[in-house]
């Protein structure tokens, strides 16, 4: 009897298992490395949540696949007549996922939520500092933000304490001001409050975040039924799921990139783009006197064989970076020459600087985190062999290292800066302006600062970009920014999937995806 029961049970289990449906309808399935840290646009502060939410929420503008900033929820804007600031004309006829219309009140509401005293405003909050009265509101000294004025349902004025021409492109996602009244403070577990092409369906922690198409999207209803972000922390598992047809697109994690590039099966599905992360060799002139001499800085740059690194160290999953701005970024200088590898000239320059064969150079550590250990070893070895520079490798715990760099206490380090908003200023201002805390090598040039100051009050793109180009030339010619190879984002896309790709800024938006 016992065996009969067991047999029956086993049989029933197997039948159940095989009876489950295998494929479902037109859902675009893509992997993300972990659960999003949050699912609302106010506390948004990390990359997985950002990837998901940019299909659910929208800002004044959106970055197109070819790296332009195009109007989204704002149709147009013009400078305020009364002082620094903008008047935004909002897109008419836009509806939130709830069905409520989008308007000026929602823009005001979102900005207040981001800055609300005691609230947990994430990265969006850091872009609002220049609004008049932002600080008073944040400190609880004012009931509203003085600089934000609703003109009518679709017009809003935002005044600044100092001009901020990049304001329209900052990634601030607008949310439905009526959602809390409708669904309560934990609305984000039940619904989404955006205007984007997809709306929230469910978040199964550790499994997936599922979105449904928004049939009333102002840009046209998506042609697929929804999107599933499958949470797959392991890169090899993601590849197996792609092989088995459980993923339509796989974002290949760093640890699996070599395997994918070597496997011919993947060649036709492969997408490879440079990341929007400016990687450089930081040389702090205050901490290591020889770096004060431009010849020494140039010699360091000339000693590095970047092409060999791209082939050997990165297995071709990397790109040359020629200047301070990554490829595809609005405002980049097109046609900058690639940094050279010239050991003979490097040696000669070092001798001219008074350090023939490295003699007389004080010992120095080249430092970074565990993740960059291979690069560090290469640089130290190369500098020793080419220049005779007494370099030792130092690996530092990440948080300690970042704190040290921010304090200007690290002399010599390779590091990268990931873009924050789609404009060259994300690098030129944040990394190299003399007073920016993220100017980690503490490079300083008065003329450069003046050009950036001028650029940041120039709303016209082409005029502003011309100023960027001048500034970038100063920075690169002075070997302040010594560019290093930037790693690639690698993805695989099934042949039956169209209109989705990887861009330097992450995924393209999913609103036009088609699955055959």
């Amino acid at each position, binding site marked *: 009897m016992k065996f009969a029961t067991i047999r029956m049970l086993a049989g029933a289990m197997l039948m159940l*298992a095989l009876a489950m449906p295998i494929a479902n309808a037109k859902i675009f399935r893509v992997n993300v490395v972990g659960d999003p*840290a*949050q699912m609302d646009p106010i506390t948004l502060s990390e990359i997985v949540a950002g990837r998901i939410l940019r299909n659910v929420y929208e800002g004044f503008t959106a970055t197109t696949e070819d790296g332009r900033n195009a109007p989204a929820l704002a149709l147009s804007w013009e400078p305020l007549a009364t002082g620094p600031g903008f008047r935004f004309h909002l897109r008419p006829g836009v509806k939130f996922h709830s069905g409520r219309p989008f308007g000026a009140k929602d823009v005001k509401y979102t900005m207040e939520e981001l800055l609300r005293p005691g609230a947990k405003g994430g990265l969006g909050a850091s872009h609002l500092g220049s609004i008049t009265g932002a600080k008073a509101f944040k400190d609880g000294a004012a009931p509203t933000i003085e600089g934000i004025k609703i003109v009518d349902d679709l017009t809003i004025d935002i005044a600044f304490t100092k001009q901020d021409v990049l304001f329209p492109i900052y990634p601030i996602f607008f949310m439905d001001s009526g959602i809390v009244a409708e669904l309560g403070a934990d609305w984000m577990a039940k619904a989404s409050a955006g205007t984007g092409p997809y709306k929230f369906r469910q978040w199964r*922690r*550790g*499994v997936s975040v599922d979105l449904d198409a928004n049939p009333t999207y102002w840009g046209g209803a998506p042609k697929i039924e929804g999107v599933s972000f499958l949470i*797959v*922390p392991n890169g090899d598992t993601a590849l197996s799921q792609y092989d088995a047809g*459980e993923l339509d697109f796989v974002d290949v994690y760093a640890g699996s990139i070599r395997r994918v590039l070597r496997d011919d099966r993947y060649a036709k599905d492969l997408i490879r783009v440079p990341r929007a992360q400016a990687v450089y060799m930081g040389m702090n002139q205050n901490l290591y006197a020889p770096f004060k001499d431009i010849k020494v800085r140039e010699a360091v740059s000339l000693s590095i064989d970047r092409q060999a690194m791209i082939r050997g160290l990165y297995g071709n999953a990397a790109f040359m970076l020629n200047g301070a701005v990554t490829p595809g970024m609005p405002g980049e200088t097109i046609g900058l020459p690639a940094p050279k590898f010239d050991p003979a000239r490097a040696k000669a320059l070092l001798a001219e600087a008074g350090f023939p064969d490295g003699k007389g150079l004080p010992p120095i550590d080249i430092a970074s985190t565990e993740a960059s250990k291979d690069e560090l070893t290469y640089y130290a070895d190369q500098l020793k062999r080419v220049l005779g520079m007494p370099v030792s490798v130092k690996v530092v715990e990440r948080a300690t290292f970042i704190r040290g760099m921010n304090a200007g206490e690290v002399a010599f380090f390779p590091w990268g800066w990931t873009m924050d908003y789609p404009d060259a200023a994300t690098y030129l201002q944040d990394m190299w302006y003399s007073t920016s805390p993220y100017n980690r090598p503490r490079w300083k040039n008065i003329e450069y600062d003046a050009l950036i100051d001028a650029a940041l009050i120039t709303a016209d793109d082409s005029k502003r970009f011309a100023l960027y180009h001048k500034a970038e030339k100063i920075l690169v010619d002075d070997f302040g920014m010594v560019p290093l190879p930037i790693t690639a984002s690698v993805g695989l896309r099934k042949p039956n999937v169209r209109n989705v790709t990887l861009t330097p800024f992450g995924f393209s938006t999913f609103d036009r995806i088609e699955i055959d």
Partner: protein
Amino acid sequence: MLAFILRRIASLIPVLAVALLVTFAAIHALPGDPVQVMLSDHSADKEMAARLRAEYGLDRPLPAQFVAYLGEIASGRFGLSFRYVHQPVADVLRDGLAISPLLAVAALAMALLIGIPAGVYAAIRRNRWQDTLLILLLVAGLSIPNFAVATFLVYALSVKLAALPVAGWGTWRQAILPVLVLAIPAGAYLARLTRTFMLEVLGQDFIRTARAKGLGPRLVIWRHAFRNTLLPLATSAGVIFGGLLSHTVVVETIFNIPGLGRLAIDSIFARDYPVAMAVVLLFVLFYAGINLLVDLFYLVIDPRVREGMGA
């Protein structure tokens, strides 16, 4: 009986206290500032840093933090996650809480269903070809590491034959491979144990007596011989269950199952120590719970233990 259970639970307290102190001390001895990691590229934002430090209580002295952490455990929140900023650890754990024990229970059930009959059968057919074949299979099942078995099964059944999903969680089909991978070594081990215990019992006098008095082979084997292997088997099953629970770490990672095991690995790599600590504590609790269950099971199956309790 109740006193026995209470005594056992009381004896857990020092174990948990030590586990708590050691994990807390270990985590705070590690280099690195979690707030800096949370801020990432915005590391120079002093205002946000101060706000986070206050929210996480990291601006307080270490003993005060420990006391606060005890309070967090008592309230069931287990503090705030570093990786999922602002979120209580309990929220991060909640959905995965049952998954690892569930996998282990399912695998144990499968291992028992396969292993025990196989072991009994091998014992009955001792030294015949069936026994030899089974032993060969058992050695293979025991000695091939489970990640290798998993990789092979995924390749053969999922990628090549497309019969079962590669990974994920939520449907029956997705549970089959992970349970199987967990159950194979456990089943092999149980079969080997059962065979050994059975052979020992089958050689004893009372079995000969049972046979002599004319009982059929089925009754002799199942009622007389097998029953006597239950006690050592129960002890082993408890140990095996503990092993299965720790193997879920590997299996959940391979099959991408959002249980505590994968969470433990992910949180350690992401330096999300509050989550890692909570997982360690929960694993300690699970182990302790299993041991308690095994002890209670003795009471049920062995009259000698029941009688000895009064003393």
